[in-house]
Every structure is written in C-alpha cells, then in structure tokens.
C-alpha cells in the first residue's frame, strides 16, 4: 500500500493508536483512524461500525464508514457530544472484526469493447496485453472499503499494484451505469450513470442499488468481492435479468 503522507503525519508508528475525534458540526463526529488509504485503518473503521451496530447506542442516527474514518451522525438532544466521544473511544479499542463474518460475492464483468472503452489504453500504458489486464483484475480479491459519492458507488481495496495508475487527466462527464473501473490504487463499481475520472475496464449487470428490489442496496462496506469475465451476449442476458430484479452477483461460501 502506498502511504506517501504517512511519514509526514507520523501516523504509521502505532497501528492501534486511539483514533482522533473530529467535530463535523453539531450533529456528527468523524472518528479518524488514519489520514491515508490504509488497510488496517479501514478494518478498524469497519470494526467500530460493527461494534456500534451491536451496541445500539441511543441517539446515534446513522454511521458512514469510509477508507479511514467513521462518520457518526447523532441527535445531540439524546446523547451528549462528550459522552458519545467517550463511548466511541472505548469501542475503538476493540479487536478487528473476524473474517468469518465477511460476506463474499462473485461479480460478472463484460470487459473491453464498448463496455470497457479504456481497456486498450490501460494495457498500452502498462505495456501488457488487454487479456493480461483482465487476468490481473479477475485474479484479485477485493474488499468494499466504502460506498459513497452516489448511491451504490463501491470503492474496493486490494487492487494488484501492477494495475495501479493515475486517474484520467480529464474526468468523463457521462459514463454508463454499472461500470467497473480502476483509479489510483483502487478499483470500483459505479452503479448509476454519471461522471467518472477512472479508467473504464468493463461493465457489470449487477446493480449495487436498485429500487423495488430486496435488498435495495446489495453490497455492504466490508463485503469481499471477486470478478469473473463474461461475454457480450451473457452481459445482455444478465442486464435483462437484473431489470427483473435478479441480483446477478453470486453469494459464495466463506
């Protein structure tokens, strides 16, 4: 993992140092475990998120895990800022969530062609063939580090360092739904059509967010994801099935 700012902030010395509690206005606290993209920090974020769900502290309205911090929304009319801070610090001292609780998903991707318009350029930039890019991408086991920006946009950690490259100089203002892309040290699944500055490798028919489907949101922060390649015909069939409410992604045994 690249930690270019780690030395600057001196935060890598003790991976289990207490988090910093930062006020995000009068109704939320940011529990910051690291200022960088850091595997251990992300695991601690998810562990605190689980611990808070289990503790069911009155006054906490919702939590938002990100790579390096947990945003805790609360009602100050129910729980005091100081009291909540103390609970958050106490619960942050716990161990990481065991892997056995992790949900694992296999997600089909139609790589290249009109569904992955950057695959050729990525291969050229890395001096490998498009097939090798796909082989490296499907070989990975990723974790949903966070979901954010727009509904269902899933940021995955665990990208092969040999696929890491800078984001596009000019972000695209419009990309289709279901894109699977790489950017920096991350890969990601963008559910809805929208702007994207990452390199588009392919598309999946899986919808991380779909109204009138149970569950509305498929992936959870902390879930594990792996990809497998499907052809254009299969992708088209899966798109129709997804339209009808099928999950498309397969839940696999831990």
């Amino acid at each position: 993992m690249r930690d270019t700012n780690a030395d600057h902030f001196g935060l890598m010395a003790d991976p289990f140092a207490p988090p910093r509690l930062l006020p995000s206005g009068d109704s939320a606290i940011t529990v910051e475990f690291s200022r960088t993209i850091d595997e251990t920090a992300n695991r601690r974020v998810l562990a605190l998120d689980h611990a808070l769900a289990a503790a069911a502290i009155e006054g906490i309205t919702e939590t938002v895990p990100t790579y390096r911090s947990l945003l805790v929304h609360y009602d100050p009319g129910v729980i005091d800022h100081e009291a909540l801070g103390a609970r958050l610090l106490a619960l942050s001292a716990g161990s990481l969530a065991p892997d056995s609780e992790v949900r694992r998903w296999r997600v089909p991707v139609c790589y290249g062609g009109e569904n992955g318009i950057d695959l050729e350029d990525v291969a050229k930039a890395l001096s490998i063939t498009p097939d090798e890019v796909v082989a490296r991408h499907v070989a990975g086991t990723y974790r949903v580090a966070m979901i954010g920006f727009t509904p269902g946009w899933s940021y995955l950690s665990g990208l092969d360092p040999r696929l890491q490259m800078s984001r596009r100089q000019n972000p695209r203002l419009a990309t289709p739904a279901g894109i699977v892309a790489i950017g920096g040290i991350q890969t990601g699944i963008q559910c809805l059509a929208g702007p994207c500055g990452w390199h588009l490798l392919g598309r999946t028919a899986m919808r991380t967010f779909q109204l009138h489907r149970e569950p509305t949101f498929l992936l959870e922060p902390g879930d594990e994801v792996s990809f497998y390649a499907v052809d254009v015909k299969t992708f088209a069939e899966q798109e129709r099935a997804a339209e009808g409410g099928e999950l498309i992604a397969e839940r696999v045994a831990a």
Partner: protein
Amino acid sequence: MSTLVVSQIGPASSVQDGGRFGAQRYGLTPSGAMDKLSLAAANSLVGNAVMAAAIEIGPFGATFTAKDGPVRVALSGAPRPAEAAKRQIEMNTSVTLNEGEKLTLGFARGGSFSYLAIEGGIAGEPMFDSLSVNARAGLGSPYPRPLQSGDVFEVAPAGQTPEMQIELPKLSGAIRVVMGPQDDEFSDEMKALFLGGNWMVSATSDRMGYRLEGPVIRHLHGHNIVSDGTVEGSIQVPGNGSPIVLMSDRGTSGGYPKIATVISADFGRLAQMPAGTPFRFKAVSMAEAQAELRRYKDLLRSLPGRVTELASSDFNIDALFTANVAGHAVSATDVTTWLGVTPD
C-alpha cells in the same frame, strides 16, 4: 379528489420534505428541503405535519391551477409576489384556489427557495420514508425529478376552515460555524481569513453545493485528502481556494479538506442567502451550536401553535402599515429577540 396542476414552472423546483435518512452509508444523500423552517411554516398553515412534503420553488416564477375542486395551499420562504384570482396573496398565509383559479408566483426576492404546502399533503410512494427528490439518483415521488410544466398533483379537496396566517422571526447576523473536522489542514492565518472575510454565494450554486466568492483560502498540505464522510453544511476547500458549502443534495463523501461546518440552526438561513449578498462566518463552540439547535427545533415544533386566523381577506392597509411599523427586527445570534421563543 382535487388536482393541482403545475401550469408553468422554472428549473430548480421539486418536491421536498424533511429528508431521507438511514442510507448515507450506501451513498444515498438525505436531500430534503433547503430551508426547513420555511417548509415547517408552510405546512403548519394548512394543518400538515411540519416536515410533510411540499413544493420547493426555486428562484424563478411559477403558476399553479386548481382543477376538479378547490385546493388550499400556503406559501412561505423566500418572499415573492403572489396573486390568486386577481388578489394579492401575502407570504405566510394560506389561500384557497377555487376550481379553475390560478396561483401566479413571481421571482424570489431576498431569498432562493419558497415552499408551497398543499392541505392534506402530497400523495406519493416514499423511499426510506421520504418523498424528497434526488434528481441524480432518480429518486422522489410523485415525480423523481425537478418539476415540469404539466405535472399534476392529486390532492384533498380544500376544507371549509378559515384561512390562516403565521408570523415568523426574521433571522439575521453572521452564519455560525463549528470549526473542523479538518481545520488543522489550514494555518491560523488562513482560519482568520476565513472567519474575517466577506463572502458571497456564487450564482453557480445549486442544491448540491454553494460556491463561495471571497478571499482565497490556501491549504497547509495540499487540497487532496482521502475521502471521508460529509454532513449538511460541511465547508470544503478545493484546490482553487474557493470554499464550497455542501448542501442538501451533497455527495455523502468528499476528498477536499473541510475547514468548518455550518451549524444546523443556521443552515436554512445560508440556503436562503441570495447570490451576491455579502455575509460573514462566525465560529462558535460545540455547546453553543447544540444549544442553538435545541432552540431551532423548539421553534419548528412551536409553529403549528403559532398559526392564527387571517382576520380578513380584504386588503387592510392599516393592518399592513402597523405590521411594517412594528418591524420585528430580531437577531439570529440573540435568541431572546425571537418572537415567542424563550431560551431554555
């Protein structure tokens, strides 16, 4: 059933309620009314729950027509000229449109968003307990997008009760903030510049974010941080040094340092700040911010009890003159000046 037809409407108008909570961890932003005090006032006038869905009308004009029976509505928020059946309609009053009558609203003056509440509320299919429109996610009901001319609301026929009015405190003063969460990404000099500077909301602002014009705020360590969670009122500073206040349709995470956060009690006032009007920020303590939030919530809850019968629908120049002379000048930073609201 009566219907209310959107005969004509500009951009940036949509159905909004108290907001959609519980799914920010999946990237779903709360949306909801930009100015909840005005939403609550409009709803109170027609007997709805204070955070019920109403029509949030952007800066441009709009015309509504009652069909298939009478429709009672109420208007609050940014002042604008309003006329129904050739009668001038005051802000913060209810009015019943008879079959075929039009309500014509002009441009907003001294604010950005007005709220049109409909007696009986707006029928729709809630998602995460909210009808609020989130246009980017294609959410909201009955229309999952900004309103367009020709849209129709099926509504309850107006009751036989009298028209109502409400008087609201006029809030003013600096927009108060709690510093952080990333104020340590800025030097003391830059923080002083942020708090001492004159700011204006840029005309390119929208429900996602208000771009601010004023002094350039530089970062200590560059403008890229690893994305973390955002709240309504987060003030992030991108690379160009011009802060952006994240508003109701914000992204749930963001990758720019956040120097401060607008306190909940002042968020609606910032939302109504007209583009080009200078204002300042003022840092307050957590304790003060949370005390103000309690008072703000008390004020919202008090609104249904503050509604009174509209004495006469005839144009009463004396009453209007008296009201103007009385001129309730109140300070947002001194709650004892708020009408009928006592500090606890």
